[in-house]
């Protein structure tokens, strides 16, 4: 179904296309298998290339994230999935040697356009990081910080409400409602990560990017975060990078498999995990490498 489609987006067909090579993809000629595009795209990336100085980390990736869906990105270490995720809210800008080429749009707006403000972009596309990184301030301050700098609350009462709703949505409220003035860094790892999620949703972003949010957490805390992601997709569009295939299978509707900077295969999560079409994908999800 997608060959013609993918060709139209820049991949050059060739007799030498190395799709049947198991651990190696031809750099110049490859095409993404599956359907990278959706009808109700919230964010869409086209022909994205990312370079760290001379090294190319992302090669010609085109991918859509649909409205209110959870898209998971999987792949072996160093495959570029985190780099791609961080391009979506321009977090890569803070790395001086990093250069992003291509076209990434949020609601059809070019986020790398000259008139795009990164502050506004990051308010609309929030992020949760691999390691829980609450500010060394009180729990209340952690959640209130975003709304405060963006001027979202006009009174103390409004701010209290934002803090409470955000903590409730991050299912942390019941645990911290009596200790709001305690430092956020004093919470357990899982609680800290939920605090970071609360902090991200306090500014009401449209998209939340999660970079291996559970990699530093134990299975119980992980289960809570996964439940949370399921609830959050009602309101937000979520892109999550994960090392855990079970996690990808549990939380996401669509899954994208990256390998050495290339998007190899993308499709419905169920299909990717039950009937992978590309050999690399199959090898990875069956645990043969990666």
């Amino acid at each position, binding site marked *: 179904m997608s060959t013609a489609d993918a060709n139209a987006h820049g991949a050059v067909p060739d007799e030498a296309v190395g799709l049947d090579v198991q651990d190696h993809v031809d750099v110049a000629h490859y095409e993404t298998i599956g359907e990278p595009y959706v009808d109700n795209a919230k964010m869409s990336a086209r022909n994205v290339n990312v370079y760290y100085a001379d090294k190319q980390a992302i090669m010609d990736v085109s991918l859509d994230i649909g409205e209110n869906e959870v898209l998971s990105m999987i792949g072996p270490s160093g495959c570029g999935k985190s780099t791609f995720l961080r391009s979506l*809210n321009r*977090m890569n800008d*803070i790395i*001086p040697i990093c250069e992003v080429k291509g076209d990434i749009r949020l609601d059809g707006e070019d986020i790398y356009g000259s008139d795009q403000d990164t*502050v*506004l*972009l*990051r*308010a609309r596309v*929030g*992020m*949760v*990081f691999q*390691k829980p*990184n*609450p*500010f*060394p*301030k009180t729990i209340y301050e952690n959640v209130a*910080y*975003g709304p405060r*700098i*963006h001027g979202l609350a006009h009174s103390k009462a409004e701010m209290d409400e934002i803090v409470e709703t955000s903590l409730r949505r991050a299912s942390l409220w019941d645990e911290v409602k009596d200790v709001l003035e305690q*430092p956020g860094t004093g919470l357990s790892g899982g609680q800290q990560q939920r605090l*970071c999620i609360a*902090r*991200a949703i*306090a*500014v009401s972003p449209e998209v939340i990017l999660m970079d291996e949010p559970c990699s530093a957490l134990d299975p119980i805390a992980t289960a809570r975060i996964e439940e949370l992601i399921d609830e959050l997709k009602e309101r937000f569009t979520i892109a999550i990078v994960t090392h855990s295939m079970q996690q990808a299978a549990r939380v996401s509707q669509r899954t994208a498999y990256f390998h050495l900077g290339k998007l190899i295969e993308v499709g419905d999560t169920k299909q990717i995990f039950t009937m992978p079409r590309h050999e690399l994908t199959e090898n990875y999800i069956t645990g043969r490498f990666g």
Partner: protein
Amino acid sequence: MSKDAFKNTELIQASLKKRYARERRFQLFGKLAVLLGFVFLFILLFDIVSKGTPAFTQKQLQIAVDFDPDKLGVDASASAEQLRQANFNAVIKSSLRDMFPEVTSRGDKKRLYRLVSIGAEYALRDRVIEDPSLIGQRKDFWLLAHSEAAGYLKGQISRELPEVERKVKDIQMDWLDQLRDKGLTKSSFNTLFFLEGDSREPELAGIRAALQGSFFTLVVTFLLAFPIGVFAAVYLEEFAPRNRITDLIEININNLAAVPSIVFGLLGLAVFINFFELPRSAPLVGGIVLSLMTLPTIIITSRASIQAVSPSIREAALGVGASKIQTVFHHVLPVAMPGILTGSIIGMAQALGESAPLLMIGMVAFIMEVPGGVTDPSTVLPVQIFLWADSPERGFTEKTSAAIMVLMGFLIVMNALAIYLRRRFEVK
């Protein structure tokens, strides 16, 4: 295979002894080094404290002062202005003669007069101006002893020394012994030392002027060096592009930290005094010069502590949409603050102990008045120590050590403050 393993064990065992011996030797050297350091520190402190402690007491002699209007040259109806001109010196001299009527020769009289400090004259004058009814009366007063007499009373000079080698002669010692036996000598805490400026007379010299000078100088240094240093560090670390120019700036800042301090003094002399014509000997210029000297320290330590802030905090702040400035001021600086403060206080402590550049801008002048502001001529503690150490009078030896004690006290306070601030900011 098992035979080989057995052989290895033996080899290792054989080498073990050697290894342990080496470890013991190393530990021994380490302990010796620490011990040596402690011994030197102890000798230094003991020397300073034992020499300096006497300076905190002053000796006074009780003299029956006869306020004879004839000798004073004024009578009880005199105005304050006339009293100021009155001859209190003559009064003290005649009172001393009255106490020791056996003294007749001119030389002995001179020696007798030298028991009392010339400051006594002004002390008496102030008392009489306060209460003119004293004129015509005879009253006992505690008068400040001359530094040499005080030195004998404090036991710093002994009779064992041949008379020609000491300033306090045998006959003066006899008088002082008489006074002591009659209970007419006393020691008290030397408040003058903390209330007065410098003086030619050791018993009248105090460190107040130098203390205040140091304080004003440090205030100027801090107000200039801290904000400039921190902002320079923030800019270089967070905003400046990495290119050849910033590399050059960085190398220069690092080199600046190694420039001998007297060079900064020369710069201050040439630029601030000769070109900008700022007042000489003033804490303002001293503070500017010292802030130039402290800037590299503050910039380097501030940059290091800003660098040490975990990038995850920056990412977190940027991730919720904070701008670069907000990230730096709301998150990076508060976390880096303990390190910045520690570095700044260490820089300030360096500045407090610095004397060479201040000599160049004239803060070495003999200044008696306590400075009232940053443009008044003044000196600073280390320069005061230098001046006193240079003075030939015996009384200044103890003053030198006492001033060192005060300076070290200040350094300890500043370092304690650095530790306190560090702990306090780190809890959060």
